[in-house]
Structures are given as structure tokens and as C-alpha cells.
């Protein structure tokens, strides 16, 4: 039953939003030609839209409150169907097999264009997993993550331009340089409280971009660097198509490597320390964990992946300029981590695919991409701060004295 009071509430909200959005949504001025455009149809849009959204909003809030109560009274939260299915080893194996097959045949079935999009998505998977170490595991909000991505990309581009260094040498160098930057930035900054850290890293990201834009002798300024070679295949020149397929497989390999390393780190002594740090800094220190060192390792390791992703990005596009490394890029990566589920590897991968592929395939939607990303960040935080796929903590089983571990 729809209650009258509910309708009244939503009606009020929709009137409020019509009022709120009136100047910006309805009127558009062109001060140069002194023309004013009135877009009255937008009133309808806002009114109806906010009416419906206010309903959904209230419903979700109510559901969340119920969920909180359930959690408090000790009732087990419902496990999602996907999770349940995946926990069955046979289903899991089948699913992995399917994904594997799809990954292998992808570049042969789909066009170069599609493969290129896939490579971009995979780069973002890598970036997301890297940032996940910093934000998801260690709980450090890093808004300048893109700076490390830029360090990687520019180190390949410049090393290649000046010294002719190839992709495979540049890949570890890019990662290492980014890690160095992470440590240099981390030393002073990681002593700060969480919210200050966010703003300082944001500032750092911007500093790097502004320097790249203005220091022409070093970085060639806004015009960027072109003709960066694609990765070599044992010294053989590849055709454009083949080389994209090659980068695709390379990216698959690197993504797998990233997943492998991140998983292992997560389940290790260091990974536990990161999570403890996120949960309670003071208790963590009181338990004998070196706060600065632990934060620095998280920061540096996260940066390493960004650096390597940067090298690949430069090799893939063969052209880079500072415009690719704005703060919005950092926020997109953050959005991937938040949507997917902070601290969850599967979540981050899912998040990256959703956020990178949907705008590509839903062209109508791509204009509103950043608007929707913003809305996603807010709604996820309000309704599901754990992300779509929440982390599962490792469980251990014990038989008497012998500690036997089982996944």
C-alpha cells in the first residue's frame, strides 16, 4: 500500500528539487550574444525523477536500517547467490575455465577496437588493485594515485626518447621509480591524519601534473611525447593488429600477476598489519606494529603497480601528455575500488570492468559518466560502504592441537 504521507513527503522533495535545480537546469544564458534559453521540459524531468528517487532512497535507507538491526542481534547476513555459487569449488573451477577461454579467444573473435577497450579495462583493473592496497587494505585515502601512473608513463617515454631503453627494461624501472616517489612523498605525509592525507596527496598529484605541463625542457609540456614504441616481441617488428593482440596478452599476464601478488600480500603478515592499521591505528601501534613502516610499504607497493600500469599505458597509446593524468583519473580509480568493494580483489576487478566497459558500450551513457561516478561514490558510501562484493576473511580450521589450515 502506498501511504498518503509517503506521497506527500516525496511530493515535497520533488518540489524542493525543482526549486533547487531551476536556475541551472532550466535557464541557459549566453552572455556574449545576450540570449537566454529556457528549457522548461527539464522541470518535468527533475520533478518526476526526484519523486521516484526519493522513494527508492527511503526504501533503501529503511532496508539498511533493518540490516543493521539484524547484524546487531547476531543474525547471519544473507550471503549472496553469486558468493554461494562461487564458494562451491566445482562451480568456481567451471567459471574460471570459462573466463579463461573467453580471455584467450577474445582478440581473435572481436575487433581490434574491442581489444583496445579491453586493454584499457585491464589497465584499470591493475590500477584498481594497486589502489586497493592503499585505500582498501591500509585505509589510506590517496587522491594523488594518478601521479604514480604518470611517473611510470613518463619514465618509459623519456628513458626511451633519451636513451632508447626498451619496454621490458622500462617496465620494472617505471615500477621502481613510482615506488621511490611513493616513499619520498610518504615519509612526510603519512604522519598526517587520514583526511589531511587525502588533500595532500591530491595536491601532490596536481603538482606533478602542473610540473609536467610547464617544464618544457624536461617533459615537452602540454604537447606531450609522441612515437613511443610499442613493446617489442623478441626484436621482431609486429604489425599494428598483431602488436595490439600482443599487448592484450601481455596485459592479461600482468593482470594475473597483479592478482596473484595482491592476493598473497593480503593473506600475509604484512597484509594483516595493513588491515589492522585501517581498523584502529592506535591499537595497531600498541600491538607492536610500526605505523610508519607499514604505511610506507602499502604506499610504495600501491605506487609500484601504478608505475607499471603507466609504462603499459604509454606503450599502448604511443603518445602521452599531462592531460591523461588529471585528478579525475585518480577519482575514477577510487570509484572502481569503492564500487567493487574495498579490500576485495574480485570486487575491484568487477568494479573496473563495470565502470570502464559500460560507458564504452552504452554510448548514450558515456556523456554522463562522471556524473554517475559521483552519484555512485555517494550512494555506495550511504547504502553499502563495503562495496558490491565484500571481503571474505580467511578462516582457519583446527583439529585439536595440530593447526591445519584450510581455505
Amino acid at each position, binding site marked *: 500500500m502506498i501511504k498518503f504521507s509517503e506521497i506527500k513527503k516525496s511530493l515535497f522533495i520533488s518540489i524542493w528539487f525543482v526549486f533547487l535545480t531551476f536556475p541551472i537546469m532550466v535557464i541557459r544564458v549566453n552572455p556574449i550574444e545576450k540570449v537566454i534559453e529556457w528549457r522548461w521540459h527539464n522541470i518535468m524531468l527533475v520533478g518526476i525523477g526526484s519523486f521516484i528517487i526519493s522513494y527508492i532512497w527511503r526504501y533503501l535507507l529503511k532496508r539498511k536500517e533493518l540490516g543493521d538491526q539484524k547484524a546487531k542481534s547476531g543474525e547471519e547476513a544473507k550471503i549472496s547467490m553469486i558468493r554461494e555459487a562461487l564458494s562451491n569449488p566445482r562451480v568456481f573451477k567451471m567459471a574460471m575455465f570459462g573466463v579463461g577461454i573467453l580471455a584467450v579467444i577474445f582478440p581473435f573473435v572481436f575487433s581490434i577496437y574491442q581489444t583496445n577497450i579491453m586493454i584499457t579495462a585491464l589497465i584499470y583493473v591493475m590500477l584498481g588493485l594497486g589502489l586497493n592496497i592503499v585505500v582498501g587494505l591500509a585505509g589510506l585515502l590517496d587522491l594523488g594515485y594518478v601521479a604514480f601512473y604518470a611517473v611510470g608513463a613518463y619514465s618509459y617515454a623519456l628513458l626511451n626518447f633519451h636513451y632508447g631503453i626498451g619496454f621490458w627494461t622500462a617496465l620494472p624501472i617505471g615500477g621502481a621509480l613510482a615506488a621511490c616517489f611513493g616513499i619520498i612523498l610518504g615519509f612526510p605525509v603519512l604522519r598526517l591524519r587520514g583526511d589531511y592525507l587525502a588533500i595532500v596527496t591530491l595536491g601532490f598529484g596536481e603538482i606533478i601534473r602542473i610540473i609536467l605541463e610547464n617544464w618544457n625542457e624536461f617533459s615537452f609540456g602540454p604537447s606531450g611525447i609522441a612515437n613511443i614504441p610499442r613493446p617489442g616481441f623478441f626484436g621482431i617488428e609486429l604489425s599494428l593488429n598483431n602488436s595490439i593482440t600482443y599487448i592484450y596478452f601481455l596485459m592479461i599476464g600482468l593482470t594475473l600477476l597483479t592478482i596473484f601478488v595482491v592476493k598473497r600480500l593480503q593473506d600475509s*603478515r604484512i597484509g594483516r598489519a595493513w588491515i589492522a592499521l585501517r581498523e584502529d591505528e592506535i591499537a595497531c*601501534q600498541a600491538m607492536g606494529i610500526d*605505523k610508519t613502516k607499514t604505511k610506507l610499504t602499502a604506499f610504495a607497493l600501491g605506487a609500484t603497480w601504478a608505475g607499471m600500469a603507466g609504462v603499459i599505458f604509454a606503450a599502448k597509446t604511443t603518445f602521452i601528455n599531462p592531460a591523461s593524468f588529471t585528478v579525475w583519473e585518480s577519482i575514477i580509480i577510487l570509484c572502481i575500488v569503492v564500487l567493487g568493494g574495498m579490500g576485495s580483489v574480485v570486487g575491484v576487478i568487477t568494479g573496473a570492468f563495470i565502470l570502464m566497459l559500460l560507458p564504452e558500450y552504452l554510448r548514450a551513457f558515456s556523456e554522463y559518466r562522471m556524473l554517475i561516478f559521483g552519484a555512485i561514490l555517494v550512494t555506495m558510501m550511504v547504502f553499502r560502504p563495503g562495496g558490491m562484493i565484500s571481503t571474505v576473511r580467511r578462516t582457519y580450521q583446527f583439529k585439536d592441537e595440530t593447526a591445519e589450515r584450510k581455505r
Partner: protein
Amino acid sequence: MKSILEVKNMTMDFGGLRALDHLDLDVAEGEIVALIGPNGAGKTTFFNCITGIYAPTQGDVLLMPPGKKQTRINGFKPNHVTERGLARTFQNIRLFANMTVLENVMIGRHCRSSSGILGAVFRNRKTVSEEQKVVKDSYTILEKIGLTAYVNEFAKNLPYGAQRRLEIARAMATDPFLLLLDEPAAGMNVRETEELDELIVKIRDEEQISILLIEHDMKLVMSLSDRIFVMDYGKKIAQGAPVEIQNNPVVIKAYLGEDIDA
């Protein structure tokens, strides 16, 4: 008896407020010492100063682990204090809420293990065996504290009393020779408090861990402690065996207010 912790002349100022005023305290090996006093007397501040969470304005903290050299730990970071064998619990429970009970205890083992990033990635034999040992040791501690039923539960889902015990288990995992307990019985019912009493004695007798505790439950304090220190307004107003403290007029006045004699 050999003393293992000596605090001398400890003073802590917050702006113009003197929270601790030239405080002296010592704990001997194998002792259970209680620190009592009215709310706001500065007991928790005192703990924070010893464990490196605050830097005291003045004073010395000397740590003398049995069989080892003495170290002056004032100015040490909390993690270094813990490494030296001084562990603590928190009054307002500070568990790692979204980690399992076992993982909480494993965090305590962090400073007693050493594998790094490379070990984590390559999982060499040393790392694997160390990790297995950490799991086993942590489980053993949970057995001693009686929390094995909850091993894989999230810490936040534990009943209140169990959370307090987990705090103790986590602190014990750091291999301390002295354990600082900040109101371990707060919010516990009578039965839980009795169990806690037994547990603390057991920790002292079986693990050879000395104990310094802040507590308001006088029944527990009187039955447990070998010696009691009483604080009021940042100052030490009395010290001695439980019987002495119970009959000390200064202490009674501090607890019940000025007009007891009037």
C-alpha cells in the same frame, strides 16, 4: 623481589592542566599491582604515558625485563615499547572489528615474526613455517583465554565479555613480561568478573607475566592484587597492601568526598 617496571617522577601537562603530578610507581616480578582512583584521576593517562601513546612532560620509565638489561623507555614509540615486552589493553575496547578473532591475536604476534614482502609473494619455506607457527601460537593463546569457540568470528560480533578477553589475548600474543590492563572487568557481570579473576591469576602463575591493572571493581581489586596504588587528581595519595588501603583514611576521603570526617 626484583622490580621490572619503575616509573619515576612522571608528570604530564595538557596545556595548563596537570594530569599527572610527579608520580612514582613500581612493579616487581610476579606481582599483580592495581592502580585505583576516582574517575578522572589520571589512571589511563598514566598508562598512555608509559606505553608511549603520550609523551610525558617529565619523568622516567625504566623497564627491567627478567634476565635482560634495563632500558629507559620514555620517548619510545608505542610499538617499540611493546617490542620491549610491555603490552596493554584498552578501557574502551579497541579491537580490530572487521578481522576475525584469530587474526586479532595474530596481529599481536606481528612483532615476534619477521617475514616481509618478498616472503609474502614467493611464500618460501621460512615464511610458510613462520606463518604456521603464528597460527598455532595464536590458537594456543585463544585456548588459554578460552575463546576457541569464536576463532573465525569477526571481533565485532563477539559478546561484550568475550571482547574484553580477546583484548587480553591479543596483548598476550606480543609475549610481554608485564601486562597493563585498563579496566578489564568494566561492564562484566558477576560471573564474568569471577572468571576474569581466575584468568588473571592464571596468566600470572602459568605464563609468568606480571600485571598492572586499573580497575573500579573493588572486590576484584582486593582479591587479586598484591599491592595497590591510589591516585587522585594526578597525584599518588597512597600505596600498600589491600588491607592497608582499605583502612586508609586518605583513600576513603578521596572516594567518598570531603565531608566524611565532618
